[in-house]
C-alpha cells in the first residue's frame, strides 16, 4: 500500500495539530487557567494520527486518560476541546468531563476514560453492536501498556476472539505506566504476544513511524471486515512529559528522554522523510502556519466563551 501525497500532508498536519494543541494546554496550565491535572501525549502523536486517519468517520474509537490526540485524530474541533478543559458551555461535555473524559460521538469517539483498561470491555460491546447490526465498521480500542495487566484486558481479548468481533486493539506502549517500566510490569515475551495467546493476530510496530501506524491500521481494518477476526497492534512509542502534572520523573533518566526527543521524534522524522520525497519546506510551512492559527484562534475563542451554566446536576445525572 502506498500512501498518497495528500494523506502524507494530512498525517503531518494532524501530528502538528496534536502537538500544538497540547503545548497550548501546557501554557494555559502554567498560567493557572486549568483546574485539575492532565496527561499529555507529546512525543506519541504518530500513533493517534496514524491510527485515526486510517479509519472512516463511522468507525468508532475508545480512548484513554491520555486521549487528546485520539480525539483530535477522529476529527474533533480544538475549540470545543479547549472549551471543555476550561469548563465552558461549548465544551464537548459541557465542563463535566474535562481533559480525561472527552467524548465526541459526532465523530465516532466513544470517549476518553479515566480508568486504566476501562474502555477495553466497552469496545467489545460496541463491536458486538456492529456485528449484530451487520455494519461494515470496526471499533479501534486505544489503551496503554499499563492496561494489559488489568483483568478486564484479558476478559475483553478472550471474548472478542471467541465471538469474532470487529475490534482492533491498539496498545500504545510508551514503555511506562506512570512510574512502572512496562519491562518490569508485563510478564511473558511481549505485549503483542498476549494477543496471540488469545488466537488474535498481533503485531508489534514502530509507533513513532506515522506511516507504519497508518498502514497497519488500514490493512488490519480491511482484514477484520473480510475475515471477521479481531486484530491486535502494539505500537511502541514514548512520552516526553511526566505522567501527569505532578510527576518528578524519578524513574527514568533525562538521557533516555532526550534520546527519544532527539533521535525518534515522530514529527521530526516524518518531516525528514517528506522532504526526501519531494515535499517542500514551503508546503509544510503552510500547513504549520494554518495549524498554529487554528490553535491560537481556538484558545482565544474558548477563553472568551461563557462558563457552563450551573444547572440541576442531580437531574443531569440521569437520562
Amino acid at each position: 500500500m502506498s500512501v498518497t501525497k495528500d494523506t502524507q500532508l494530512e498525517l503531518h498536519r494532524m501530528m502538528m495539530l496534536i502537538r500544538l494543541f497540547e503545548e497550548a494546554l501546557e501554557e494555559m496550565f502554567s498560567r493557572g487557567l486549568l483546574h485539575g491535572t492532565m496527561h499529555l501525549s507529546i512525543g506519541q502523536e504518530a500513533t493517534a494520527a496514524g491510527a485515526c486517519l486510517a479509519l472512516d468517520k463511522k468507525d468508532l474509537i475508545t480512548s484513554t486518560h491520555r486521549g487528546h490526540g485520539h480525539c483530535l485524530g477522529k476529527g474533533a474541533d480544538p475549540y470545543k476541546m479547549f472549551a471543555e478543559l476550561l469548563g465552558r458551555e461549548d465544551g464537548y461535555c459541557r465542563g463535566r468531563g474535562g481533559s480525561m473524559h472527552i467524548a465526541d460521538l459526532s465523530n465516532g469517539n466513544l470517549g476518553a476514560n479515566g480508568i486504566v483498561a476501562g474502555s477495553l470491555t466497552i469496545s467489545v460491546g460496541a463491536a458486538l453492536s456492529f456485528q449484530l447490526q451487520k455494519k461494515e465498521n470496526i471499533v479501534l480500542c486505544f489503551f496503554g501498556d499499563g492496561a494489559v495487566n488489568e483483568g478486564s484486558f484479558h476478559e475483553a481479548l478472550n471474548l472478542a476472539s471467541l465471538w469474532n468481533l470487529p475490534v482492533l486493539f491498539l496498545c500504545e506502549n510508551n514503555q511506562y505506566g506512570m512510574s512502572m517500566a512496562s519491562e518490569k510490569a508485563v510478564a511473558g515475551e511481549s505485549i503483542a504476544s498476549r494477543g496471540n495467546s488469545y488466537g488474535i493476530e498481533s503485531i508489534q510496530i514502530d509507533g513513532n513511524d506515522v506511516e507504519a501506524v497508518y498502514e497497519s491500521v488500514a490493512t488490519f481494518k480491511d482484514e477484520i471486515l473480510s475475515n471477521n477476526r479481531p486484530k491486535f497492534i502494539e505500537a511502541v512509542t514514548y512520552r516526553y512529559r511526566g505522567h501527569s502534572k505532578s510527576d518528578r520523573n524519578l524513574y527514568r533518566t533525562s538521557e533516555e528522554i532526550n534520546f527519544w526527543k532527539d533521535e525518534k521524534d515522530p514529527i521530526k522524522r516524518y518531516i525528514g522523510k517528506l522532504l526526501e520525497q519531494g515535499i517542500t519546506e514551503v508546503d509544510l510551512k503552510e500547513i504549520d502556519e494554518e495549524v498554529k492559527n487554528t490553535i491560537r484562534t481556538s484558545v482565544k475563542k474558548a477563553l472568551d466563551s461563557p462558563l457552563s451554566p450551573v444547572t440541576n446536576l442531580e437531574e443531569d445525572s440521569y437520562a
Partner: protein
Amino acid sequence: MPELSVGQAINNALSLILKEYPNAFIAGEDIGIYGGAFGVTDGLLETFGEERIKDTPIAEDVIAGLAVGAAMTDSKPIVEMQFSDFIVNAMDPIVNQAAKLHFMYGGAVNVPIVVRGASGAGTGAAAQHSQSLESWFCHVPGLKVVTPSNPQNAYDLLLHSFVDPNPVIFMEHKLIYKIKDDVVLNNIPSNSELLGQAKILSEGNDITIVSYSNMVNVVKDAISSDELSEISAELIDLQTLSPLDMETIITSVSKTKKLLVCQEAPANSSVGSTVISNVVQSDAFSSLSIAPKLVSGLHSPMPSAKHLETTVIPQKEDIMQAIKDMV
C-alpha cells in the same frame, strides 16, 4: 513533637510498622520510586527495599487479593489503592473474600489487612477520581471503615487499623494530605481500641454536628466564623464509620437536642443517613427539638469544572446556613 502533614504522618506510621513488624509489607501502584501518587510512601523504598515496598503492575484485583492471601498466612499487608475510586476493581477480594472469610470459615482464619486509598473531590480530577465511596464498605459486615481528618488521627488510626484483626478500609481524603499540625509519634498499640471511637472536637450546648473525613475541617471553619460566634456547637469527628460510635452521638444529641450531619458523599444510603436513622431510633429521639438535618454532596457524579465541582460538594457557606436555620 514534630510538625507533620497528614501525608508525612501516615508515612511515619508506615515506617514504624515496617520497622517493628518484619512480616509487614506494602504493595500498590507507584508506591516505590515515585513515592505514591500523593507522596505518602516517599522514601520508604530507600529504607526498606523492594522486598517490602512492592510496586505492582496496574492490577487492583490482585493487589487486594494478594493482601487477603498473605494475611491468611501470617503476613501483615498494607495495600494502596492509588485513588480509592479504583477499589471498584478490587471489590471481589474485599467484599466477597476479606470481609467474609473469618465468619464463613467459622473463625478459623483472620484477614488483618489495611486497604488505604485517596478519596474525595476538590482537585478537579472529575467523576472517576473524586468519589467518597466509604458507605459502600460500611454496608458490608466484616469490614471496618476508617476516615482520618488530621495529622494526629491519621497517624494513630493507621496504627490501630494495622493491629486490628479485621480487614480495614482506610480512606484518606486528598485535601487533608497537606494539612499540618504537631503530631505525637505514639508507639504501635497492643490493640485497636481507637477504632469505633468518635472524637468530640469541641464541646457545645446548642447543636450537635457530626462529620468525618475532610468535611470535619470544613465544619470547623464554619463554626469558627465570626457570624456564628454566638452559637455553641458540639463537633464530633466520627473517625471510624464502621463500627459507628453511636453512644457518643446519642449522649451529645440528648444534651443539645439538635443534630446536623455533614458529609461530602451523596445522601442516599450513606453514613449520615445511618447516623440520623440510629438517633431517631434511640432514646435521644424524644429530646430532639427539631428534625435532624443532613448536609451532603449532591446526587451527581463529580464534574471537572471548578465552578460545577463546588456546587456538588458542600461548602462552608452551606454548613453555616444549615446551622443558622437550625439554631
